[in-house]
């Protein structure tokens, strides 16, 4: 069975500092990996994805993520955090074989302090 782990419930960083939100996954076959963000009182929004190719993918709002096949990880990063980045972040994996069934992690709350 496929699974996603987000080991940190909460990440706190100061504005202007780099941020990392961690994600590891387990899936049979080649994974499709996604990050979504949920701002307060708003729906889930797509940030970025890894399907194939370059291990470093860039997405919306200056976020990027690095796919590491040997460590089965897909960590979300941003070089310089903004207070407006404070939100709930979800990592998700889709199975490229079984009709793309989705599994989400339990989320990491990112708080960026001024």
């Amino acid at each position, binding site marked *: 069975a496929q699974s*996603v782990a987000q080991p940190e419930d909460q990440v706190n960083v100061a504005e202007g500092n780099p941020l990392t939100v961690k994600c590891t996954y387990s899936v049979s076959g080649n994974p*499709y990996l*996604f990050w*979504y963000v949920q701002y307060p009182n*708003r*729906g*889930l*929004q*797509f940030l970025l*994805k890894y*399907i194939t190719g370059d291990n470093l993918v860039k997405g919306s709002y200056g976020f990027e993520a690095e796919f590491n096949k040997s460590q089965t990880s897909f960590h979300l990063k941003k070089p310089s955090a903004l207070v407006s980045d404070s939100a709930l972040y*979800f990592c*998700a994996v*889709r*199975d*490229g074989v*079984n*009709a*793309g*069934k*989705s*599994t*989400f*992690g*339990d*989320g990491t709350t990112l708080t960026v302090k001024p």
Partner: protein
Amino acid sequence: EAGVAQSPRYKIIEKRQSVAFWCNPISGHATLYWYQQILGQGPKLLIQFQNNGVVDDSQLPKDRFSAERLKGVDSTLKIQPAKLEDSAVYLCASSRRGGSYEQYFGPGTRLTVT
């Protein structure tokens, strides 16, 4: 382009009552998903449709939950009878056909069972 529409936004019912949720996906999206998101957890896939066929419903409690997607467009999710543990946000999402495509989420329906 119009986003994923869901109704109602909020619903309060007593246990053992029935409830139905409606979802209209983004035009042209072949795949439709229903998720249950309990507070503090990530979205859990209940059922995935491709056009009007079911791709995955392995986590749908079929003794009380049912869903349909007639004509391959909008969809309804029903709970009958509801239990206290069904209190959650029910999310509908849609995507283009294939596991490599990101999902677009509706605003969700917050269900409270008393």
